[in-house]
């Protein structure tokens, strides 16, 4: 025998008093002779989706966070909560951007910085990848290379700066060298781990079906290690921008860091904030590039994207 009970009456179930029948029962008491009564409740109770939720497109949601920050900035400066000296308003920053764009300073600085980061990332990725491949494929090499890399990794890269200046001076190559060193480590660590982590069962399957050494590398090891390499690349790009700021503090007459330092001595917070915004945009752009690379290289993955 089954009794249907409404939401309102679920709480009263303990006293087992029968309630009025509801259109959509939230619970029911089932009684079978000779057995204790069983209370059935709707497991989805209260959380049922009655209408389709309006979904905000992910691009819009992604944009929402920065937009909120921007609004906060605008409000804080526009309402005069902080002085213009301490933090320039968005309008002032836009004005500074226009001024520096017209004079060509912004383009020159950007070009110089992009060149340094680009060259440093190129060399760093090349070296890190080469070391990871050698250490990943040859057991003898791995003993030597991996222990050395793990030892060197513990030294903060910025601490190398004095030594770099002694070795190769304070010119352009010193800046590129610093970024190269900083980039090589995350690339190496992640790629090496990824190569060593390639599923041995897939390697065995490849051997069974007649893949030679080169075929194994091309068809199994490289694609298998690609996700790890891309994680390293993303990390390395973050390191590269960080080291750029440090490198450009040392005797420079061009680049974003130089512009930043000069703005500080000119007391121009609008230019300082402009530089920070440009750094932010550059970081976003490089992250987006890796994202595109991931989407094309790892299109085979049907990973978990979150809900």
């Amino acid at each position, binding site marked *: 025998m089954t009794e249907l009970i409404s939401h309102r009456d679920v709480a009263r179930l303990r006293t087992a008093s029968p309630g009025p029948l509801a259109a959509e029962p939230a619970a029911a008491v089932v009684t079978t002779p000779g057995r204790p009564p069983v209370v059935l409740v709707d497991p989805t109770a209260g959380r049922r989706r009655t209408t389709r939720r309006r979904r905000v497109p992910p691009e819009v949601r992604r944009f929402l966070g920065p937009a909120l920050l921007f609004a906060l900035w605008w409000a804080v400066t526009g309402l005069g909560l902080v002085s213009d000296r301490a933090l320039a308003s968005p309008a002032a920053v836009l004005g500074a951007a226009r001024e520096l764009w017209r004079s060509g300073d912004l383009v020159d600085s950007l070009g110089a910085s992009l060149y340094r980061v680009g060259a440093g990332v190129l060399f760093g990725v090349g070296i890190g990848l080469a070391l990871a491949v050698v250490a990943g*494929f*040859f*057991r003898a090499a791995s003993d030597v290379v991996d222990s050395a890399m793990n030892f060197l990794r513990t030294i903060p890269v910025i601490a190398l700066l004095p030594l770099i200046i002694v070795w190769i001076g304070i010119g352009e190559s010193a800046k590129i060298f610093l970024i190269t060193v900083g980039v090589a480590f995350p690339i190496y660590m992640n790629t090496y781990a990824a*190569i*060593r982590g*390639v599923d*041995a*069962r*897939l*390697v*065995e*399957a*490849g*051997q*069974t*079906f*007649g*893949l*030679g*050494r080169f*075929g*194994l*590398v091309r*068809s*199994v*090891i490289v*694609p*298998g290690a*690609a996700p790890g390499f891309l994680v390293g690349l993303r990390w390395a790009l973050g390191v590269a921008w960080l080291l750029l700021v440090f490198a450009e503090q040392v005797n420079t007459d061009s680049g974003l860091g130089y512009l930043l330092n000069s703005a500080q001595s000119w007391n121009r917070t609008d230019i300082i904030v402009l530089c920070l915004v440009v750094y932010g945009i550059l970081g976003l752009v490089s992250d987006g590039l890796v994202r595109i690379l991931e989407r094309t290289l*790892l299109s*085979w*993955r*049907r990973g978990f994207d979150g809900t």
Partner: protein
Amino acid sequence: MAPRLRRNVSTQDPQHPAYAAGADPAPGVGGGVAVLARAGTDDAGGPAAAGRGAAVRVRGLRRVFGEHVVLDGLDLTIAPGEFVALLGRSGSGKSTLIRILGGFDDGVEGEVLAARRRSVVFQESRLLPWKRVLPNVTLGLSGRDVADRGRAALAEVGLSGRERSWPATLSGGEAQRVALARALVREPELLMLDEPFGALDALTRIRMHALLQQLCRRHQPAVLFVTHDVDEAILLADRVIVLTEGRFSLDVPVDVASPRRRTDPAFDRLRVTLLAELGVDDLADGSH
């Protein structure tokens, strides 16, 4: 575990019987498995192999891991076209034998000869997740008609039209069928299957049995089918071998009229015998 790109030959005994015996040590296909020509001059083969050559010939095979003797003096001959099921409890060394015949194990003692063209279907499909279905099937093959051969093999396992699917989008049964196509496209003389349907649901498994039987009739490879499922072994095999603690404890032909039915008294008698050999007596009534 590190990818095994190098075969560490130096750790092996140079006086190794597997190398001393028979032909050249298998160019390209690794391990201590020597090549056995299909039309081999085979005089010492078992009764089934006599005068017909053999796809597998193993004499006095031993495999020791440290102190632990996993395979202890095995003799095995599989005739061309013969379907042999290998039963054994887990840990009895079934997979070790497959690994040795597949050429993945360097540390063997004894004579080990296996057909040059051999393929393996593993328990997991082991498809490369970053290659679509067709390149997975034709993996390691070269030649102009490779894609057509791959398509034909996929058609044989009933997967026409899935050539461009990613492995991650396949169901378990579909993935195993692709693995079968990948094994068969090579026209193997010896097909080894290591619990290939162990991870599939019961309904898919029944369909896979029919498919495997049909494919074996058409291609006539010698088959070594490792399983722990007694019914599966009786349904499919010409001969069943039981591996117990590193030795073959039973080697019986399957004399059940086809089409084989579980209700056939001969089927049931063999099942009871095999289960008893595997140490399961309490199911002697044959129903489970």
